[in-house]
């Protein structure tokens, strides 16, 4: 904190007022409502409701569709994070080394940050369209019998590929700036000590990038949890049979399309708990990093 601060009775409250007001109305209130609703059971017409304690949570946790979605979400998030981090790290290391055209490569690889998830979903949908999709034809011409409309694994592959494609740019930006933050003299000293570029990477560069990698892992997991909603909604829509629906997508489907308010609210609360753990973890890490 600052060594010297203003001591003023009204001014700080005036300055935080807009934010607190918006947070109260559009965040605290809905969050409290989600919590409240998760303990209620509404009748089919939404006319009356009764307090049912943890029934909704029990129902959610014991339902096979929720646990399947939870498992898919975890597998999906881990695969998307690891794959996009690996690809972008590989590209960033090379982009950091080139001298000719370095700027152009950087631009060509980072612009993807600006692509909206549903746009990515639509592009993926286009390339895997059974009527005309180039990738659909390509996979089948190699004899994979690829069919993401009916096969759950193939559908998962499509969603993961799109999600990875969309996320490579962000990771690339962070890795490249992380690499450029490593002093040139350290890299040069390593060149004198170690001939093989691969070995140099694993013994010097990668350990120095560890904080960036860890940070990106958290960012990517959060991305895979939440921001992939648009990708799924415009590509597979959770098909076939809910096998590619992440937990967030399921909250939407059950709450809005299925109108199961209590169940959807209970799912929201469970999600909130999961995200809170992830975020606290992230902040712990960031606080610790300060002391390096």
């Amino acid at each position, binding site marked *: 904190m600052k060594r010297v601060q203003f001591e003023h009775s009204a*001014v700080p409250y005036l*300055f935080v007022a807009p934010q607190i007001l918006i947070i109260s109305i559009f965040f605290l209130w*809905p969050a409290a409502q989600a919590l409240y609703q998760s303990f209620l059971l509404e009748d089919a017409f939404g006319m009356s409701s009764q307090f049912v304690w943890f029934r909704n949570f029990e129902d959610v946790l014991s339902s096979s569709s929720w646990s399947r979605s939870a498992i898919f979400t975890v597998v999906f998030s881990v695969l998307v994070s690891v794959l996009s981090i690996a690809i972008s790290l590989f590209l960033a290391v090379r982009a950091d080394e080139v001298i000719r*055209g370095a700027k152009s490569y950087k631009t060509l690889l980072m612009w993807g940050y600006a692509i909206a998830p549903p746009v990515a979903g639509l592009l993926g949908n286009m390339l895997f369209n059974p009527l005309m999709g180039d990738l659909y034809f390509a996979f089948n011409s190699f004899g994979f019998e690829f069919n993401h409309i009916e096969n759950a694994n193939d559908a998962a592959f499509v969603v993961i590929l799109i999600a990875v494609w969309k996320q490579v740019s962000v990771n690339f930006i962070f890795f490249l700036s992380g690499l450029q933050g490593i002093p040139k003299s350290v890299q040069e000293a390593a*060149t004198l000590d170690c001939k093989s570029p691969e070995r140099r990477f694993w013994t010097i560069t990668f350990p120095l990038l560890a904080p960036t990698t860890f940070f990106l892992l958290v960012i990517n997991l959060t991305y895979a949890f939440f921001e992939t909603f648009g990708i799924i909604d415009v590509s597979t829509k959770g098909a076939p049979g809910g096998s590619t629906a992440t937990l967030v997508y399921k909250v939407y489907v059950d709450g*809005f399309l299925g109108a199961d308010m209590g169940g959807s609210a209970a799912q929201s609360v469970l999600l909130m708990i999961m*995200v809170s753990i992830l975020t606290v973890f992230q902040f712990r890490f960031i606080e610790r990093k300060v002391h390096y």
Partner: protein
Amino acid sequence: MYQSKWRIFTNHAILILGALFMIMPVWIAFSSSSYTPEYIFQNGLQFWPGAHFFDNYGAILFDPSATKGRVTALEMLFNSMVLGLGFAIGKVIISMMAAYAIVYFRFKLAVPIFWVIFSTLLLPLEVRIVPSYEVVAGLGLLNTYTGLILPLIASATGTFFFRQFYRSVPDELLEAARLDGAGPIRFFIDILVPLSVTMIAAIFIIMFVVGWNQYLWPLLMTTDDQLYTIVIGIKQVYNSLYEGGQIPQFPKAFALTIMATIPPVLVVVVFQRMFVKGLVETEK
């Protein structure tokens, strides 16, 4: 630094492949958007641009029936612009002010207020969409720009960006300003805001892109076509691709996709330096 010939060659080969991996889907969508639906339906996606570029984009931009609704892509672009700008401006102003109070003042409720703001980071909008929808509906804000933008601003990411930045401003600047007779509001307006210009610009760019690309919230909020953003329009066109036994209007869907992508990509590429700086320095 010394590099072997082979290493230089593979570096370029890998980067070119990476760039193609990023660009190809968009390029194919762009090329295919310049054909007639019949041609695409019969011949599949196209690698080289065709002759119907102006027909398709013109129809999308100005003819409501081409987007399967009552609005043209031009109106959708306008809505997206309002959302992107409103979100970015609102977020920058509100978070600058809140961060200023948190960093530069000693006041009674500072700690609880900090935790309330912090808690919004734990719970993104996506996990509380149903109750948020009900609150906004209850306030009569469905299908309004206010209802579209304000709930998105509730998250505190911007506040943390600015908090981080203010903490890196040397303490002596505040001390010098106080000796120069500047009070809290004057210090904010005369010193801190001008000092933050680069940071404001960087965060503004990031927030504009984030706002432009919003999907889930506008999807729930806007039942009225008049408020559709271009990103929502994509979904709309996509949903009606196979309707009514017509030939699927793929080229128009692609054209809409390209139009949704160009503005944020331009912003990111043109302001690349500022954008990268903002992203990397604030998120850490």
